[in-house]
């Protein structure tokens, strides 16, 4: 038995199925949480988070002042945190 070398796992670049399933689950949850946002919150968050626009640019795009823009982003982040908090514990 001592002569038997341990079996080497083949090296692969692609993620394992569990990881893929978890990733898909997270994407679905994010999509659901995003769908629950109001259109203004969704637009403000998308411009800030995905497109990296500044608060000033977002306000100009949406026709809002700086304070209203910030609060739209804050509300969106708060809602998303509430919706996605369980996932953070799982991951």
């Amino acid at each position, binding site marked *: 038995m001592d002569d038997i070398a341990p079996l080497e796992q083949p090296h692969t670049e692609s993620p394992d199925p569990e990881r893929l399933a978890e990733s898909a689950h997270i994407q679905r949850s*994010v999509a659901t949480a995003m769908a629950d946002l109001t259109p203004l919150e969704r637009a403000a968050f998308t411009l800030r988070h*995905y497109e990296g626009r500044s*608060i000033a640019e977002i306000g100009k795009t949406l026709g809002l002042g700086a304070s209203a823009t910030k609060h739209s*982003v*804050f509300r969106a*982040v708060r809602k*998303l*945190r509430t919706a996605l*908090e369980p996932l*953070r514990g799982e991951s």
Partner: protein
Amino acid sequence: MKHYTEEDLILHYYSERGRRTGIDVHLDQCETCAATYRALTGTLRLIATPEAPERGDQYGLEVWQRIRHRLPEQEVPWWSVWFRADRLATAGSFAVLLLAAFVAGRWWSSPDPAVAPTLASTKPGAAAAVTDDARQRILLTSVADHFDRSERVLTDIMNAPAGEDISAEQRWVEDLVATSRLYRQDAVDAGEHSVALVLDELERSLLEIVHTPSRVTASNLEEIRRRIDAASLLFKVRVLGDELRQRERLDTPRPRARATQTS
């Protein structure tokens, strides 16, 4: 110790707050704020930026289909109705047909509109009859002109004083004699016997004038006048010339049987 709010930490995460160094120092010292910030960043990192899908070949069409019903109706100018593709095609077809009709009309020579529909379409050989009639009309017109010229030269010679040189008139008469022979033959061929008869008499009188001496004497002139008067040549030439002119004006071929009665 002052703690930062969630809003401050969100702005810090997105690098919107200028006091970055101050917050970082605070997060190193304050476990409460650091835990809040870790929870915040942990959640936001779950929301990864999705990869933009490759645009398909139909992307432009799909976008257009999505937005086209939202576009306002554009008012088009009234004259642009005439430039619609279907109307342009119709107008082009008419133009081509018109051009084809024009070319066809030029290609096939049209028959005489007054005669062809009645004669050429009813009888075989009608085209030949039309040609004969046309030839006869041309002959009558030419003979009428010939009679006019002959009348003038005969009148000149009959009124010429004795001893005058009529060589110029004789040269003119020579031409008339040659022409008269041709017309007489054509008149015979065309069945215009009365015309041929007058042309024959005219030819003889003209020949007599040609063979008269150039310096005409009184007796020569008397002989010519007597011959012309005896045959009533000037009268016949004038009457027949007028009749031919009249037939020419009416533009209706005279029946040959009636033509033979004129003399």
